[in-house]
């Protein structure tokens, strides 16, 4: 549920709105739900509203965690078995 995506705030605009940018696409959204947003921040956008800010440090931590994963995995685990649903 709740399709939402992180987008970079490109420009603050009047009436508590902002222009956000994602992969070359710009869209106007409302900042009514989040205070203190600055240009360059990433926000989670849902139905045209920023739901929250994204924390770049935490994102980096999660990505670092991924990078560690699977280090020194035994070869048998690298071959997936058939799944059943």
């Amino acid at each position, binding site marked *: *549920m*709740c*399709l*939402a*995506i*992180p987008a*970079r705030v490109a420009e603050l605009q009047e009436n508590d709105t902002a222009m956000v940018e*994602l*992969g070359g696409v710009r869209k106007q959204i*409302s900042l*009514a*739900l*989040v*205070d203190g947003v600055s240009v360059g921040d*990433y926000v*989670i956008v*849902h*139905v*045209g*509203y920023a*739901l*929250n*800010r*994204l*924390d*770049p440090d*935490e*994102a980096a*931590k*999660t*990505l670092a*965690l*991924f*990078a560690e*994963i*699977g280090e020194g*995995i*035994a070869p048998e*685990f*690298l071959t*997936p*078995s*058939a*799944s*059943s*649903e």
Partner: protein
Amino acid sequence: MKYIDEFRDGQLAQKLAADIRREARSDRAYGLMEFCGGHTHAIFRYGVQGLLPDNINMIHGPGCPVCVLPIGRVDSAIELAYRPNVILCTYGDMLRVPGSNRVSLLKAKAGGADVRMIYSSADALKIAQENPDKQVVFFAIGFETTTPPTAVAILQAATMDLANFSVFSNHVLTPAAISAIMGSGEARVDGVVGPAHVSTVIGSRPYELFAEQYHMPVVIAGFEPLDVMQAILMLVRQLNEGRAEVENEFSRAVTRDGNLKAQAMVAEVFELRKTFEWRGLGWVPDSGLQIREKYVAYDAEKRFELPYQSVADHPACECSAIIRGVKKPLDCKVFGTVCTPDNPIGSCMVSSEGACAAYYTYGRYKESR
């Protein structure tokens, strides 16, 4: 696309999958419910299930707002849309959801009802301003993510004193639904993948109570496929270690407390309903939101005196059991024959977040093996 593409990396997926296979114990099964249809969609769209060992079994929960909306509510929206002076605005997801007699808002639109697809609650306000001689009703659905934008719209309408705007609120609460499923004890759920976007608003704290109460591990996870796999790994670890904690995989945007401003706006406009009917879960106490007396002028249920009429699901439809995690799409006799995304019988076949539609649209290749 920053913060998106990194979380869809196929190489990392292979490694995460290997880790999961390594850590998952072959002597037990793991029944993991992804509460949220967004996760269901991601799992099918990226083929996550195929990367998991056989004993990790994803159970698709009730977290698709259009799937849990009971027929009676759809019927009310259609009835409203047909009124000559009413423009009914709603998100695209709602258009094909069948009410009674398989009539959807899309069919009502074809039949002459004025139904407008909007992208944001702000669009509904704009339509109201542009059509002063019409009554514009926003048919609002969704969980805690979609509720704050609705609250903002009502607050703005009040500021503008917009007399021809109202909201037909069908907002529902995630924790209440999870509790209902846990409480019923029907589904064999060992752990829960919690929806990150809901928690950007409500935080992770609301899950703590029932993690403890039902001794149920919960991992709040993002909607990219690596997020989901990481959450699965974290759940496997909790289960292996006998823990039942609330963990936060989406720390990049979820805190324990969530978005207090959004919560305050929702609290200003909405209050708990005593009870609300869910498709699949039946009447669940304290699970829905209604508009407070203070904003009654914007409450379409009051303005148009919409009576609620509970309507039974199609007898063949297993949506209700599927939403509770008790059955799977293929357990339904009409899946893929009478019931398809083009002619859905139940709501699970409508949105690609619904378990039946996700399986039909993305998963059926398994049938060809």
